């Protein structure tokens, strides 16, 4: 076991450091440090344009998606090198938010199922941020029960015709392409009638409408499909195999968000080190200390768990469902931290005006964003099902829809 760099890793780190030192958009640093919890702050600059600019710069120098093969726009780097890159990119990594879904989830799915020609066409522009991708999975009637989705795909000649609606699609409003899971056979049990595609988001009949969220932001969208045509050549995997294809995406989703996920720990630490409460500085209060120690132990646990997963990955092991713990722990923790941090501030903690509130209202933003963390990409409850069934091997819950054709499943409507 060695948590230090090997000589080779140290050389690589030096190389990364010096490139970032010479090229990073330092004019955004201060604002980026205040970002988080659903928003990327770039001050007077346009966040999407800045994100694309940084991504393109990285890509031109061979520092985008460094683990990908060179012919797809990457660098052919090892998992450990990728960790080093992320550590050194640091705060500028916040600019990559727009690309996470495409690069972290759509790309691995494409790489498993798309043709070589398609990969050569789409991967380099995804790596360089010139094209943004989204993932069209959830539906109004199919969230936790994703396999209950209803968006129809019907074959017409060499095309498929899509009708239906997706929801909670992050970044659809900026996206050029998306991967889309559909129902191609409503007669068979639900998991067996699904098929995956990728499509051009500018196709006729695609309508993207932002959702106004409970916290007032609009990061997610509804996407409507009305007679949208997708060529059969853009099918990913066999007809009826969509569920299996989606698992590739979801497994990578957990890897993508498991490691560097925000917990709120640095925010509460900064707060209690300077905040005065009735007993003196907050951090000296035994109740505060006890909670802070618990949260530190959890955030260190997540970091060290991610390190172990990376080690396993670098030895050729496949990331498993155990990586579901990252978001499960971080989501609840962020919410608890936000509530406790505001509690220490009394009624003044209710202020969300960044000019007046402590710490530019980051903790208030955390409070308002945290409920979503516990839902998006698998609710806390679904993650517990995954851990207990796939890791601990506990028996499945009884299912009222098991073995029944999709169109015979009771829907309550």
């Amino acid at each position, binding site marked *: 076991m060695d948590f230090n760099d090997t000589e080779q890793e140290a050389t690589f780190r030096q190389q990364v450091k010096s490139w970032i030192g010479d090229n990073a958009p330092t004019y955004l640093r201060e604002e980026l440090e205040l970002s988080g919890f659903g928003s990327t702050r770039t001050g007077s600059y346009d966040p999407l344009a800045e994100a694309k600019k940084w991504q393109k710069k990285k890509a031109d120098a061979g520092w985008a998606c460094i683990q990908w093969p060179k012919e797809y726009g990457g660098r052919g780097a090892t998992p450990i090198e990728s960790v080093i890159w992320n550590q050194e990119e640091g705060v500028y990594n916040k600019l990559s938010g727009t690309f996470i879904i495409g690069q972290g989830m759509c790309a691995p799915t494409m790489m498993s199922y798309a043709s070589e020609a398609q990969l050569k066409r789409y991967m380099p522009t995804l790596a360089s941020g010139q094209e943004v991708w989204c993932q069209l999975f959830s539906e109004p009637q199919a969230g936790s029960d994703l396999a209950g989705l209803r968006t129809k795909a019907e074959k017409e000649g060499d095309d498929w015709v899509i009708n239906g609606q997706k929801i909670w699609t992050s970044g659809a409003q900026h996206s050029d392409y998306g991967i889309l899971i559909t129902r191609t056979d409503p007669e068979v049990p639900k998991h067996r009638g699904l098929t995956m595609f990728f499509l051009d988001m500018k196709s006729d009949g695609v309508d993207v409408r932002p959702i106004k969220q409970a916290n007032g932001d609009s990061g997610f969208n509804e996407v409507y499909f009305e007679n949208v045509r997708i060529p059969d050549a853009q099918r990913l995997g066999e007809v009826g195999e969509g569920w299996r294809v989606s698992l590739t995406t979801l497994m990578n989703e957990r890897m993508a968000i498991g490691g560097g996920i925000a917990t709120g720990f640095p925010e509460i630490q900064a707060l209690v080190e300077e905040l005065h409460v009735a007993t003196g500085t907050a951090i000296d209060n035994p109740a505060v200390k006890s909670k802070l120690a618990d949260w530190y132990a959890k955030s260190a646990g997540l970091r060290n768990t991610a390190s172990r997963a990376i080690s396993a990955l670098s030895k050729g092991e496949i990331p498993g469902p155990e990586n579901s713990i990252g978001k499960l722990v971080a989501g609840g923790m962020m919410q608890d931290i936000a509530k406790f941090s505001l509690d220490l501030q009394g009624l003044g903690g209710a202020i969300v005006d960044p000019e007046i509130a402590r710490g530019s209202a980051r903790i208030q933003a955390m409070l308002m964003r945290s409920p979503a963390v516990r839902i998006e990409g698998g609710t806390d409850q679904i993650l517990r099902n995954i851990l*207990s069934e796939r890791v601990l091997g506990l028996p499945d819950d009884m299912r009222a829809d098991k073995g029944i054709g999709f169109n015979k499943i009771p829907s309550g409507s």
Partner: protein
Amino acid sequence: MDFDFSSEEKMVRDQVDRYLMNNCENGVFRSVLEGEGAYSEDVWRGLVEMGVPGTAISAEYGGVGAGYSTLCLVAEQLGAYLAPTPFSSSIYLAAEAIQLFGSEDQKQTWLPKLAAGEVIGTLAVTESTQESTEDNIQVSCSDGKLSGRKLIVPHAGIADLCVVVARDINAGVNLYLVDLGDAIGASPGSVSVTPIDTVDNTMNSCSVQFANTPCELLGAPGEGWHQLKVVYDRAAVLIAFEQIGGARKALDMAVDYAKGRFAFGRPIGSFQALKHMMADMYVALKLAESNCYYAAWALSTDSAELPLAAATARVSATQAYQLCARDNIQVHGGMGFTWEFDCHLYYRRSNYLTLMLGGLSTWEDKLIHALPSGKAA
């Protein structure tokens, strides 16, 4: 960077695992718990024959010199099988204190015997039902003689050697070595050891009364409390590994039972109320395990991060074992509260280990104390 144990280290772990699986099933714990002997002499002898106590003692003092990462994995197995042996007191505490602070002579005298299991050591700190502090140590030393009472000392009934935290009238708190056999032989009545009942009677806890007991200084005068903290930081990593070992077994026990027990016409493990509880046990364990790995690295490399890494591992391992032992009983329902089922063995051990080296709040405090300011980051 490599965040995993080496194959050599894992080989030792597997060897200890196999030995304990065959020789230390829960019945061994039970027989000690029910009063048949103060510890399992058979298991202890077996471990000694394999050279296990000397794992991290250097070869020049009769050990194996395999390092602390290996010892961590050994500790994990000892915790998993609830081994009722004096390993923790003798190796993580007494031998560690001598290795760190002993004179060359003291090391030559004691370490080979501790490594070979010929001598069992322990560490005496606690004097009352208050958490120990530098200020409330009252056992005192004058003219090389100890007086006063240690309220609870693990494995004291079978120990030959005791490291004692005591106050020198002039120098402050020191560590002392007491050769118990010698002391009793030379001046009968100078040490009396009285077994006391605890939540885990397999830990052979005793009160120890010193009355003009001959002792010798261990380490630098006036540095005793600081030295104790150094020993505790190192022992905390090893105890944390025992805790995750035990937590894993308690979780496995819960999962097995939930798969086989039927109610309402289905296995109880299919109910989300129970499977979510076990998922939470798994999460706590996984976080603790990862923190323990990091602490093992800090311990084995004498990293400056050891105090923080040790406290972090200790806090999360305590939480994980407490949760797994408690909710293992809950999964078992009424059967979990019988003497016959093994759930209470983990519950007992988890609660004893929580308090050894100071309880959870003490370690939370140490963690925050060791945490670099967020402003520096």
